[in-house]
């Protein structure tokens, strides 16, 4: 799966934002039509069926609605990762132009912060409600865990009130090597998973299943928890570090935000997504040769050798290196 970054601008400043450095350092550029058409061809030639639109906040792109319609016309299923905060006119555009699209072709993942734990201006919260009120049935809730005492309760109310899709995208806030962004540390994983499963009764009552995003280590789940996850997720259960390919407006590629400063390439150096994935898979292997996983016991772990678990995210591993080591890894 490829992520197309439409703009580096965002309307929010989340304390855990792992894209912040990439977004701040990026030139103030938006994805052009020419590049979008090139990417649609590139992805189609690679046999891709789905594409994700990210930012910054992708709906800030002046042609956001046009781009979604274009990609749908090109037979892609489109996922939009949004914070739901947008101007009334942009929301009207979404309703008017995207409202006819089937929820199979277009899906929003709305990244929600608990207003009691993550301070946000009331005006932004209001806008999120307005977005969900209009586009709730196209939207899947998303939540990033950046503190161990995270509180998910508000999400159940959102799902119920706005008829959102009943699958929660649960991500871990990842460290950005060399910065001090808030994130979950390896020693906090167990506590995070325990707290997560304390919501099991609510998840079951609201029939909300969730899939853990990349970076969760399998060894921190009990067999019972794994069984429940397997059942509720329809058997789709992975503990890999899935480095999605991110493509920026200036056509740079890298494998996931936290690693955006390492081994950045131009998409024009590749013929298809498979080649890019292979290249970054090689980089990840190189990283894991230095440090196999986030715990000492990852070294020689049978789950790792079977490829069931990647022993946490590569970003966590790189974060353990010194600054000097990062320079070495970047190949500069």
């Amino acid at each position, binding site marked *: 799966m490829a992520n197309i970054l439409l703009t580096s601008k965002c309307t929010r400043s989340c304390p855990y934002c792992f894209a912040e450095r990439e977004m701040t350092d990026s030139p103030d550029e938006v994805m052009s*039509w*020419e590049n979008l*058409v090139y990417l*649609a*061809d590139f992805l*189609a*030639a690679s046999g891709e069926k789905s594409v994700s639109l990210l930012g910054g906040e992708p709906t800030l792109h002046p*042609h956001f*609605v*046009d*781009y979604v*319609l*274009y990609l749908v*016309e*090109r037979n892609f299923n489109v996922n939009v990762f949004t914070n739901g905060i947008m101007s009334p006119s942009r929301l009207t*555009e979404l309703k008017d*132009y995207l409202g006819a699209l089937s929820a199979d072709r277009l899906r929003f993942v709305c990244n929600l912060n608990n207003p009691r734990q993550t301070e946000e201006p009331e005006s932004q919260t209001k806008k999120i409600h307005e977005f969900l009120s209009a586009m709730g049935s196209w939207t899947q809730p998303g939540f990033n865990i950046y503190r161990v005492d995270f509180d998910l309760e508000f999400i159940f109310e959102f799902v119920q009130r706005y008829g959102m899709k009943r699958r929660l995208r649960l991500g871990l806030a990842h460290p950005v090597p060399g910065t001090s962004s808030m994130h979950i540390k390896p020693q906090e994983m167990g506590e995070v998973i325990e707290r997560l499963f304390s919501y099991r009764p609510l998840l079951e009552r609201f029939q909300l299943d969730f899939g853990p995003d990349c970076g969760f280590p399998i060894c921190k789940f009990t067999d019972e928890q794994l069984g429940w996850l397997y059942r509720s997720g329809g058997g789709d259960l992975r503990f890999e570090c899935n480095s999605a390919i991110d493509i920026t407006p200036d056509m740079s590629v890298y494998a996931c935000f936290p690693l955006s400063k390492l081994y950045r390439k131009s998409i024009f150096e590749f013929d298809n997504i498979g080649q890019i994935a292979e290249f970054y898979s090689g980089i990840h292997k190189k990283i894991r040769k230095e440090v196999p996983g986030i715990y000492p016991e990852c070294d020689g772990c049978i789950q790792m050798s079977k490829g069931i678990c990647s022993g946490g995210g590569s970003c966590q591993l790189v974060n353990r290196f010194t600054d000097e080591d990062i320079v070495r890894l970047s190949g500069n």
Partner: protein
Amino acid sequence: MSLRKLICPYDPSLIGDFCNREIAVQVDSPSLVCEAAGAVVNSANSLLCVILDSVDPVCAVSFEDQWKGIPILLMAPSVGEFRNVASVLPSLKKLNLRVCLPASNDNIRDVRILSSVGVHCSIMFEGGNVDWDALSDLMTYALLARVFHATIDPFDYISRHYNSLTHLNWGGAFLDDPEKYFHLDKEKNVALSSSEALAKQFIGRIDDVEKTESPEVQRRCDAWSLNFLENRVCATCDGFKLCMGRFLPKNGKADGCSAFFSEMIEIFGDLKAVKEKSSKEEVWRL
């Protein structure tokens, strides 16, 4: 002298005056498309296409189901926002239609977008303010893109007619080729290109022009040779075989056009080599 195909304004009596001609009929309103096509088909002539001159962008044209099967050349000033184009695409893609746009930078971009979603297009470029780099990107896309897209003229036209041994007048992609087309007004006056017809630069009435091959027609057809006779800069340009001096810069220097046409010739050379290589028999056959 071979009978030229005629480009006429829609006028039933004008069409009725001809016999056994291939006619492209011009209308300025979508509501006249069927009527004009019917007038030609029901006369003693055959229909080349209906040229719909629209003052509105493509997204604002009301495409009708009855147009199915009628070859249509839609001349529009621009495309419009994709959000509005998207709503007309389902009807548009069912038609036997080609969208023709002037080569502004926005249109060069929009032609690529339309082509990528399956709408056949033409981009008309003349001298002056052509962005040769943007056009070169479009040409590369038209000729070498790896995934399916609809054709883009004149590049598709050139690729189908290109012969490395001779020059090619690809104005035919826009019905502008005096060897093949005459542009008429309602009084049957002949112009040798659409722009000349618009500017009312006629060379005579069709009956007179066709009685004997008009010297003006011959002069126009041979205009390329002046580049050599007058020792113009185009005569020594690598891209001459395709350009034929039609973009002679006012300052006498060949700038972007030279690189553009040279690159196109190079691409055709590469394509030809690939084609020849792939058509070589690998196993003997009886």
